[in-house]
């Protein structure tokens, strides 16, 4: 039972990551391979605020959102100069830069040593120390994230995103300053990723830069593509599959280290297979051509 709660918490966190990345990759057609950076910024910001300034989790979460969103604004502005494959490469570059900063700004982040003893959220005296209550909390945020994403997708803005993905120039001809639209969704997605990061930090109570590398970005991307581009439920489905799978591997008795690498092997292979045979993923509405 405990184990189930644990998996569901991870699933919720990755669900938020996948939903947010889907908004950027699936709906807007921007191949962003830097999502882990915003995940990490949210995690570190929340952690540092809670530990160094003794702030409440929820307040730290909010401020963390500002940090991930702000960074996304800057990165997004530079990325807006690129298209397609150059966009992907540049975004990878940013992931590495952010990771480097996490690793090397040791006075702030303690570098590779990481930051331990991150407290659980508490509100009005109630502490979410128990995993069950934490699960409820994070599921709640997952649902909110989903609802917000759905609202965006169903609005006129959502339609514009899809049009940008299909043909950006034609979208401009019909009066849209597409740069602003792309930047906006990029920032919104980054903020959501930051929230996921805050929960991650609080849950595992220890963070270090190694979680937020480009490998993680590729993993989140594979969840999104597997579940299906431009389908929010697909994002959730993808997260469910790719989180449950490796946990199942652990049951097979594989030592921890190999289990982690096996997960990577699996999603690497899945990515290739998807590109070859099913670029729209399981229930996607859009395929990478």
């Amino acid at each position, binding site marked *: 039972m405990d184990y189930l709660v644990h998996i569901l918490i991870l699933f919720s966190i990755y669900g938020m990551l996948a939903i947010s990345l889907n908004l950027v990759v699936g709906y807007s057609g921007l191949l962003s391979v830097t999502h882990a950076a915003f995940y990490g910024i949210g995690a570190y910001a929340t952690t540092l605020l809670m530990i160094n300034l003794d702030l409440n989790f929820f307040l730290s979460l909010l401020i963390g959102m500002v940090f991930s969103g702000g960074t996304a604004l800057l990165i997004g502005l530079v990325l807006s100069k*690129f298209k397609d494959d150059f966009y*992907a490469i540049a975004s990878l570059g940013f992931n590495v830069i952010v990771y*480097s*900063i996490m690793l090397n700004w040791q006075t702030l982040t303690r570098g590779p040593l990481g930051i331990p003893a991150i407290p659980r959220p508490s509100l009005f005296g109630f502490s979410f120390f128990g995993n069950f209550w934490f699960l409820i909390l994070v599921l709640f945020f997952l649902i909110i994230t989903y609802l917000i994403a759905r609202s965006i997708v169903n609005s006129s803005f959502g339609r514009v995103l899809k049009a940008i993905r299909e043909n950006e120039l034609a979208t401009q001809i019909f009066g849209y300053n597409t740069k602003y639209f792309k930047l906006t969704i990029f920032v919104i997605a980054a903020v959501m990723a930051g929230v996921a990061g805050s929960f991650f930090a609080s849950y595992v109570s220890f963070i270090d830069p190694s979680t937020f590398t480009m490998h993680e970005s590729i993993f989140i*991307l*594979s969840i999104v593509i597997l579940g299906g581009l431009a389908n929010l439920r697909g994002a959730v489905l993808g997260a469910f599959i790719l989180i449950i799978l490796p946990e199942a591997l652990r049951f097979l008795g594989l030592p921890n280290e190999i289990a982690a690498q096996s997960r990577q092997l699996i999603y690497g292979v899945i990515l*290739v297979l998807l590109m070859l045979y099913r670029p729209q993923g399981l229930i996607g509405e859009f395929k*990478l051509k």
Partner: protein
Amino acid sequence: MQLILNSFIAGSIYALVTLGFNLIYSTTKFFNLAHGAMATVGGYTVFYFSKTLGLNILLSVLFGLLVAGFVGYLTNKIVFKPLRKRGATNMVLIVASLGLLTAIESLIAILFSSQFQTLSNNQVTQKLFHIFGGVVTQTQILIFISSIIIMLGLMFVLKYTLFGSAVRAISDDEEVAKVIGIDTDKILTIVFVVGSIIAGWSGILTGFDTGLTPILGMGLLLKGVISSIVGGVGRVGGGVLGAFMLGFVENFGIWYISSEWKDAIAFGVLILFLVFRPHGIFGKK
């Protein structure tokens, strides 16, 4: 002085990676991020044959190169060629190459563990050379020399051989090349194999120089990508120059800032070039 030497050596390693990468990019016009995995494959194959099986070192290196080339051949045959044939966009190809990179490197990690391994023989201490006050190891000299030789060799082949002109024709315009009767599939296959072998060689040398880890390929690859973009994607000579420039910027950069920032500096350079000069120093617009 040591700084200058280090820059040259770093540049040489990046040059080796970028030579293969650029060759593939110039003909296929996509960023094959799985290229880095070939380096890892090469290095670990040598490790397997020499350390685990105890085979003669030269033979192991030969195997390493062959296996790297073979894996490169496979990735093209199974993944990239079919995708390109159905007209996949560069984004699909990049995603597929990311998948391949991840899969191959994790497979290696499973087979060989993530621990740091070294190819060099512990008994024999590396011969050291003293040049104008700086120190380089024998391996490092080998790295430098081989990168120059391979670069010159490649340039010669491209300029003076039939195969080379076919490659240049494809780089220029693949459709036209097909029309004038060039067997583009065969040429591209050879390009992939040759590129992968060069990458394998760089992985092997790295194994001797600094050691092996399953993710060494990814690191090398990223530097290779940066070198290519700085020097001009698709231009063999340009890529090499970009590689050396990168080596210099990194090493001199860390003279002022501490060495852990090396990667960030490298990627900062990448972003700057992408924004201001995406065709690189020598590339055409």
